[in-house]
């Protein structure tokens, strides 16, 4: 068994599921494509060029008496089922005084509950070939049970207790904590993580829950057992629960089992927590004449420089979501995007350059990143900025945009083969408060985006469209050997800041979060 050394771009906010796969894009400067030999064209099977209409079978949904929400997707193809339950108890819910408590609580769920000891849980897993897992994300903690459907009756009560009635035995909490500390130590020197954290910290501010770096080993080590219990009591609320299952289940029978197991837990008296609105740090100038101050994180001996760029973006419900999705595809959302073509295929600076629209509940970011060799740091940074400008000034040709749309819609349709994907789309729609027909109109929404839309959102989010000030809104970070890269990088991304130009803060207006219930 071998693992492929996949590179993970550290992204601190959830990316949108629909933008996951990568798509092709014919670059302006690409050489003319040689036509396949006539034999091929003549004998090709007919390709249906009619617009693809995608209809998703909706999940069956209902709300529990305690406010939890159930999603069931019936699919008889597989005897295996995965139940998942998530509650709003992720890392964003931690206070600055209790960093690390969310992950610790999540990983300790299976260390014992009111009725089931950790040993008993492991024994049940062995007996049924089942598995229980839990992990903390930014906003939510998700616990899952994978098993054969005929064993669900016996195992679902365990999942319910795991989430709502864990006992957090002191000795076991300590052990998990020691492991989490070691894992945090092992991760500390990861340059991608350092870059993503520096960018978020600069953009949102280090006291914002959205700008905080991941908890340090010291912070995790300092969490007291009472904090874990208190965090659980406050945030593992049934009214925040999203409970889903896809597989060989029947909505009526499985629904009544879920009602029995997850419907009667009580909510705390305190009102449900609400995330603050995301506000960006005021930097740069409101007239776009100077960019935010570039940041260099020194990483002595670094073999490469991680370059990261970011601008304030949108939340998931923003009407600009689809134009931005398409603009991002063109900029850096796939292998054939402009950034990857320029930095990898043309220049050979990197194994990959890409950009991502993070559109969560709060106002997210639009980021771009690549690991490049030290010697080309400044040139690569200039290429990034040039592509940001080009997106604002060179509209995609209609044919190019059509290809991207076709690819996006085509891959969307192909991912719906799996019942699990249908389930996540339903949950996504509910969580972000998107309209009921959202996924069935997805293709039409993609198709409606025009080349002008792409340029418009590029100008709005990346800068002014004027080459001299086009990077006015862009935050930039370089993580690497400062002695080798710092001067060139700063000159490349912010010559004005180098010249000591006065920087006036722009006006920043917070936007309400999407789908906050």
């Amino acid at each position, binding site marked *: 068994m071998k*693992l492929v050394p996949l590179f993970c771009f550290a992204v601190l906010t959830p990316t949108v599921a629909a933008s996951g796969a990568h798509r092709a894009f014919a670059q302006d400067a690409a050489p003319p494509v040689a*036509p396949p*030999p006539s034999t091929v064209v003549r004998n090709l099977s007919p390709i249906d060029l009619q617009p693809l209409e995608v209809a998703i079978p909706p999940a069956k949904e209902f709300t529990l008496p305690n406010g939890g929400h159930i999603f069931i997707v019936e699919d008889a193809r597989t005897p295996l089922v995965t139940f998942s339950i998530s509650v709003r108890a992720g890392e964003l819910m931690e206070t600055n005084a209790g960093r690390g408590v969310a992950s610790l609580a999540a990983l300790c769920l299976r260390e014992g509950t009111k009725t089931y000891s950790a040993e008993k849980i492991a024994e049940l897993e062995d007996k049924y070939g089942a598995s229980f897992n839990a992990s903390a994300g930014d906003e939510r903690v998700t616990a899952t049970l994978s098993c054969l459907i005929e064993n669900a009756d016996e195992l679902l009560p365990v999942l319910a207790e795991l989430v709502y009635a864990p006992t957090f035995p002191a000795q076991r909490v300590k052990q998990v904590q020691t492991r989490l500390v070691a894992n945090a130590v092992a991760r500390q020197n990861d340059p991608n993580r350092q870059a993503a954290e520096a960018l978020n910290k600069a953009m949102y501010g280090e006291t914002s829950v959205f700008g905080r770096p991941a908890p340090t080993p010291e912070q995790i080590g300092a969490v007291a057992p009472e904090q874990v219990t208190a965090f659980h009591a406050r945030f593992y609320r049934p009214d925040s629960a999203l409970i889903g299952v896809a597989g060989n289940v029947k909505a009526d029978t499985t629904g009544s089992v879920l009602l029995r197991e997850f419907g009667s837990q009580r909510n705390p008296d305190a009102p449900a927590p609400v995330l603050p609105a995301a506000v960006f740090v005021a930097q740069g100038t409101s007239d776009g004449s100077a960019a935010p101050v570039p940041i260099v*994180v020194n990483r002595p001996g670094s073999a490469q420089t991680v370059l990261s760029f970011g601008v304030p973006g949108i939340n998931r419900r923003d009407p600009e979501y689809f134009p931005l999705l398409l603009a991002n595809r063109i900029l850096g959302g796939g292998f054939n995007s402009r950034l990857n073509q320029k930095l990898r295929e043309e220049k050979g600076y990197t*194994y990959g350059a890409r950009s991502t629209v993070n559109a969560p509940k709060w106002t997210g970011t639009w980021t771009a990143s690549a690991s490049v060799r030290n010697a080309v740091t400044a040139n690569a940074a200039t290429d990034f900025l040039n592509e940001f400008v080009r997106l604002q000034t060179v509209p995609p040709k209609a044919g190019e945009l059509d290809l991207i749309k076709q690819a996006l819609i085509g891959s969307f349709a192909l991912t719906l083969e799996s019942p699990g994907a249908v389930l996540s789309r339903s949950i996504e729609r509910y969580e972000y408060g998107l309209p009921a027909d959202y996924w069935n109109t997805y293709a039409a929404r993609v198709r409606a985006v025009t080349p002008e839309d792409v340029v418009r959102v590029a100008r709005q989010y990346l800068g002014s469209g004027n080459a001299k000030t086009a990077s006015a809104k862009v935050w930039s970070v370089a993580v690497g050997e400062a002695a080798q890269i710092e001067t060139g990088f700063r000159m490349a991304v912010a010559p004005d800041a180098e010249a000591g130009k006065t920087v006036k803060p722009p006006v920043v207006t917070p936007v309400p979060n999407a789908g906050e219930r």
Partner: protein
Amino acid sequence: MFVSGIIGGMRKHFAALATFVALCAVSPAFAAPPVGDAASPLPPLAFTDRTLPNGLRVLASENHQTPTVAIYVFYKVGSKDDPPGRSGFAHLFEHLMFKSTKNMASEQLDRLTEDVGGANNAYTADDVTVYHETVPSNHLERLLWAEAERMSNLTVDEKNFKSERAVVQEEFRQSYAANPYGDLYLQTTIQGFTKHPYKRPGIGNLAELQAATVTDVKAFHKTYYRPDNAVLVVVGDFDPAQLKMWADRYFGAVAKPRGAIPRVTAVEPPRTAQRHVAVTAPDVPLPAFSATYLTPGVADADTPALDVLASVLGEGESSRLYRALVYDKQIASEVSVESNGNTEAGLFTVLVTAASGEKLPDLETAAFAEMDKLREEEITAKELEKAKVSLVGGIVRARETVDGTANFLGVAAVLLGDPSRINTELARVNAVTAADVLRVAKKYLSPMNRVIVSYTAKTATVPVAKPDVKKVKP
């Protein structure tokens, strides 16, 4: 997380398809149906097997569940065939196969797949290099044409070559040089063999990649990329008569070169004494060690029992090493165990990362003591069952998609030596007994058969460097 040698690399790090050479996928997301269930979810795969006059073997299996088709081309050339002084070349070459051909522009293959909602990628392993696409089924003919085109008409120019070589060098820096444990992974492979070229990591090294030339590329293509050194696998929604016609038309036209294909002849000698290699690196957050044991090639009868042994030792929180070192003694923070077979020899690899403040010698002693128990006593029935559920789950999942099935069929044909092994692997796993596991543990896990690579920070007591963030004043 453990990364090592079968896969030298792949072309895209943001590919939609994760590809594993191994038959047994790792870390199942859910458990498989009961092992040996009469209503097995895995009916035998029906496939056709024919060889064109030029030597190309064509394996095909129809499946009309979804209107998609997977195309895999296996070339029997891998990192073990890297020319002398050109470590990493087979993998670099894999990247170049996406450049221009006589009738295709660079990256046109992306256009043919991704623009229609499909996907493509490639991977290089020690024994094979594999190119694959999944597309809506009405695009099958195009892709067959394109694969035949790059088998016969690759045209790499100096500019494309240099820029792609730089990409692969960045892949090395990103995956290994920037990874605090990158050197440990490389050294585990390098120290794992004495004679066999499996000792050269597939990713190569910067100097030997830099030494490669366009002339090397042309010679390599001519030597190994020929129809009688390849297997075409097509699985999914196709018409067999059409497939036959298209395979004949496009691949049948590729000439079979004269001359024999060079093969690696080196044989790895048995290990006779434990070896211990100390490696240091500047930024090692927590010390770690790897221990490898030399095992036979993947087609060997002992492979399923070794897979069970690896699972019992290191898979999940209830595994022996995890429970003992991470959970009970709390001297390790991470444990991983895997049994990799290449065609000619394999490594059973244990990798343990220390917990904060632990000394490696103590950790090694504790790990080996735990492993010794498996050489003395049979594993429990539950442990055996759990490992089988996981391994069977991997096989079942590989068969769930056209992509996974095509890869599996190719692996069976090329690495296991017989495509029909796709239908017998499950029974081989199910047949493993606790006595088999004890036997292979005794046979392979002896100290005499062990190479340890210890990995520590260059200076013993350096605290983890905090990032030093600087800002200029505006």
